[in-house]
C-alpha cells in the first residue's frame, strides 16, 4: 500500500514535520482504523497524473475522482481528501482542467472538472515520463 504524499509546494521529497502531516498525506492505506500506516513519499506530480487520467474518462466532481482512483487501483491508492482539492485548483490554474457547476446525483449542485486540450497533451507527456521513470527504476533493481 502506498501513500502518496503531495509535497507542499516542493517538487522534491520532503520530510514531513509533525505539524504538517495530516494535510500532506493525501493517500492512506484503506485499512481498518488502528493498524499501522506505512507512508511512502512520492513525487507531487503523481497525484496530478492520476487526476488527469481519471478525468480522461469524462467530467466528474472531486468526490467521484477520488472514488474512481481508489476503485481502479483496487483500493491500493486512497487519495487524501485534504490534498485533493488544492491539487484540483492548482491544475485548474495551470489550464489543464476546467471546472463548471453542474447538478450532482444528490440533487444539490457540485463542481464538475473536465480535461482541456492542453490537459490531454500534458497527460500524455506525464504518462510517458512516468513510464520511463518506472522502467529505469526496475532496471536498476534488476541489475544492481
Amino acid at each position, binding site marked *: 500500500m502506498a501513500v502518496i504524499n503531495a509535497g507542499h509546494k516542493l517538487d522534491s521529497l520532503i520530510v514531513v514535520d509533525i505539524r504538517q502531516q495530516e494535510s500532506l498525506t493525501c493517500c492512506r492505506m484503506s485499512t481498518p482504523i488502528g493498524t499501522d500506516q506505512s507512508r511512502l513519499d512520492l513525487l507531487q506530480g503523481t497525484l496530478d497524473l492520476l487526476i488527469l487520467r481519471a478525468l480522461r474518462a469524462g467530467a466528474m*466532481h472531486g468526490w467521484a475522482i477520488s472514488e474512481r482512483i481508489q476503485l481502479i487501483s483496487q483500493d491500493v491508492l486512497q487519495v487524501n481528501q485534504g490534498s485533493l482539492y488544492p491539487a484540483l485548483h492548482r491544475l485548474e490554474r495551470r489550464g489543464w482542467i476546467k471546472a463548471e457547476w453542474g447538478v450532482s446525483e*444528490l440533487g*444539490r449542485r457540485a463542481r464538475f472538472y473536465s480535461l482541456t486540450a492542453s490537459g490531454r497533451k500534458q497527460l500524455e507527456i506525464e504518462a510517458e515520463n512516468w513510464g520511463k521513470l518506472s522502467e529505469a527504476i526496475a532496471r536498476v533493481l534488476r541489475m544492481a
Partner: protein
Amino acid sequence: MWQDIVLRFRALFFRRRMDQELQEELDFHIEMQARRNRQHDVDPAEAKRQARLQFGSVVSATEECREQRGLFAMEMLLKDVRFGLRMLRKSPSFTAVAVVTLALGIGANAVVFGVLNALVLRPLSVPQAESLYSLHRNDNSAAVSYPDYLDLRDRNRSFDGLAAFNISQAGMDAGENPARVWLYEVSGNYFDALGIRPYVGRVFHDSDEHGPNSAPYIVLGYAYWHTRFQDDRGVVGRTVQVNKHPFTVVGVAPPEFHGTMLFFSPDYFVPMVNQEQIDGSNLLNDRGKRWIFMTIGHLKAGVTPAQAAADLNSIGSYLERTYPKDHGQMTFKLGRPGLYGDFLGRPVRAFVAGLMLLAGLILLAACANLGSLFAARAADRSREVALRLAVGASRIHILRQLFTEAVLISLIGGAVGLWGSIVLLRSLSEWQPFPRFPINVPVTPDANVYWVALLLTLASGFLFGAVPVRQALRIDPYQIVKSGSIGRIGRRITVRDALLVVQIAICAVLVTSSLVAVRGLVRSLHSNFGFEPRNTILMETGLDMAGYRGDAVRAMQKRMIDAMETIPGVTSVGLVDRTPLGNGSYYASNIFTDETIDLRPGNAVAESATYSISPDYFQAAGTALFAGRAFSWHDDENSPRVAVVNREFAGRIFGSPSNAMGRYFKRRDGTRIQVVGIVEDGKYQSLTEDPLPAMFLPILQSPSSETSLVLRSNRDPQQLAAAMQSTMRGLDSGLPLLIETWNQKLDLPLFPSRVATVSLGILGVMGAMLSITGIFGMAAYSVSKRKRELGIRMALGAQRKEVLQAALGRALKLLALGSAAGLFLGILASRVLAFIVYEATPRDPLVLAGVVLAMLLLGLLATWIPAQRALSIDPLTLLREE
C-alpha cells in the same frame, strides 16, 4: 496561461464569492462521504462526523486552495499593510517622530536633487539641448569679436549654424516711464539655429540683416511681454524707443524660452547688427574688440566635440596667421552653455555635489535614528513576537511584517518630505535675489525629482527596517515567554549604540561645516576690497541711453558731479565708468612695457582692469593713495596721458612699486602713459580672485558714457537718495537712474558665500535636530528600562551624581565618541568644504571650539528631560510595585 490570468482576476475581485464556492465544494464532498458511511449502517450524525474526520482539516484544505489561487502573496501583503497601519496608530508619538525624522531627511535630499537636476542635469529648455555647445578659449572665456564670429560661422564644418549673443542694457521708452532693460543682442540666425518658433508674430532671420543698423527689430521675451505689456497681442508692429532710436516689435518668444543662459532672463532680443544703437559705439568692425558674450551652436550629426574643437582650432590658427595684431593664441574647446561652460559650471557643480553629499549624510543619520527607534520597538514587542512564533507564524512572515511597517513609515515620511521640498523648490524658482538683475534660479521640480524621492524613500525603508532583523531572527520563543522580555543590560556594544555614534558623527560633521561656512562668510566680508563701501551711495546710469553723444557726455558728467556736490551732507563725489566688483565684469586691456615695439597680445605683460575716473574718485571711494597724486580736471584730452595704478600693476610692469613713479607703459593702441600715482590693491572682479593689476585713467582722457557716481556721506541713505533723484530730475528727467548703497551693490559678489552659508546652516540645524532626537531617544529609553536598577541604587544610597552617571553615562560617552569622530571627519573633509565656501578651513581653532561647544549643548539639551526623570524616581514606590 490565459486561464491563469482570468482566475487571478476573479480571485482578486470576487474573493468572497470564490470563498463561498470553495466552501460549497468541500461541503459537498463531505456530504458524499457521509452518504457512503451511512451505507455501513451508521446513523447519520455519526456518519457525518466520520466523514469529517476522514477528510482531515477542512480549514487547512481551504487555506491551501486559497494559496493555489496565486494571489496569496498579495493578500498577505494587504493584510500586513493593514496590520502595520494599526500598529502605527497605536503608538502615535513614535509614528510622529519617525515620520518627521524621515520627512526631514527625504525633503532635504529632494530639494538638493531638485537644484542639481535643474542646474546640472537638465539642459536649457531649447529643442535638442544635448547637442548644443558653446565655444570657449583656453582661458574659459567665450568672448569673441564680431569679425572673428563671422569667420567662425562661415568657415566651420562641424556646426549646424553658429549663433552668437551678447548681454547688454538699454533705455527703453514705450510711451510711459523710461526704464532700463536687459536685452540680448543676437546674430541673425540665433532663433533659427536654436529652433525657436515665435509665440506671437515672427522672429528675425539672417535675411533681415543688411548691414549695420539695418534691422531695428525687437522680439520680446514672454515674461517681459506679460508684465510690461499685459499680454497685449497688439504690441506686435508697434514702434518703441530704445536709447532714443526707433525699434519695431515683431514678435514674442515662447514662454519656456529664457535665452541661453541658465540664471538670466533677458527682457527682449534685438539683432546684433544694430548693436551700435544699443551700446553707443560701433564694435562690429574691430577684430580686436572681444565684446560678444558667447557663441553657441548645435553640433552636426555624427561630429564629436573633439572633432569640432580640432576644426575650430584650425580656424583659430588661420586667424592668428592672418591677423597677428589682434590675436594671441587661439585654441578652442567646447563647453555647455547655460552655466558659461566651466567658468560658472564647475563651481556650481562642485557646490551642488557637496550639498548632495551632505544631504545624503542627513538621510543616513535619519535612517540611523529610525533604525535605533525600530530596534527599541522590536525589543519591546518581543513578547508578542514570541507568542506569534509559538502559534505558528514563520520567521519570514514576522520579518515581512517588520519590513512592511518600516516601508509604510518611510512612504508616509517621504510623501511629507517631498511635499515640503516641492513647496520650497517652487518658491526658490520665483525668488529674485537681486531686484536689479533678472536673475532667478529655475528649479521647478520635474519627474526626475519625484522618482529620486521615491527611490530614496524605499531604500531608507529597507535600510532601517533591516536593523531589528538580526534581533528578530534570534528570538527564542520559549526563553522569552519564560523570562519576560529581552532585557540585556550588558556592556556589549549593540547595533543601536553604533547607530547612535554614526548619527552623532554625522551631526558633528554638519555642524563643523556650518561653522566653517559662517567663518568664511565673515572673513570675506572683512577682506580688503580696495574701497570702503560704508557710508557710500552709488548712482548708476548710462548717458548713451538718454541720447548723449561725444562731447555732450563729458559736459553732462561734469554737470552731474557739480550738482551732486551741492547736496548738503555730501563729503565727496567721484565718478567711475564701472564700479569695481560690480556686475562681475570689468573692462580689461592689455598692457605692455615701454620698450615693447610689437604690440600684439602675446607680448603683453598682463591684462589690467581699467577704470575711467574723475579726480575725486579715490576720495569718494575711500581708496588709499600710497604715492604720487590723484588726477585733476587739468588732466584732459590736451595734456600728456597719465594714469594711477595699483601696486600689483606696478609690480608686474616695473618690478616693484617704488620703481613705478614717473615711468611709462604702453597700451595696445600704442599710447604711452605715465604713472603719476600708486593706490592700494583691491578686488575688481570677484571676491575669490588672485591679485589683479588695475589702472585708473582720467575721465577726460578716456571718456565713457557709462557713469557711476560715488557719493560719500554720513546722511541717512533714504534721504540722500531722494535728494539725488530730485537733483538729477532737475538736470535731465529722461535719464534712467539706479541708486543704491554700495553695500547693497556688494550683494551680488557676496551671493555665493551667503547661499553657501545659508544652505550649510540649514543642514547643520537639521543634523543637530536629528542628533537631539537620537540622544534623547536613547537616554529616555535607557532610563525607562532601568528604572528598577536605578531605584535600587537610590535605595542603597547613591547620590544624585551617581544616579545620573548610571542612567546617562552610556549616552554621554557615545556622544563624546561620535563628536570626536565627526570632528575628525570634518577636518578631513576640508577639501570638500573648500569647494563650497571660500577660504574655508576647518582647522580654524574658533571653529573647533565652536563645534565642541555646540555638541556639548546638544547633549545637555537632549539629556535634560531623561535626567529629570531619572532623578525623580522614588525608590519606595518603584520597588513596591514590582
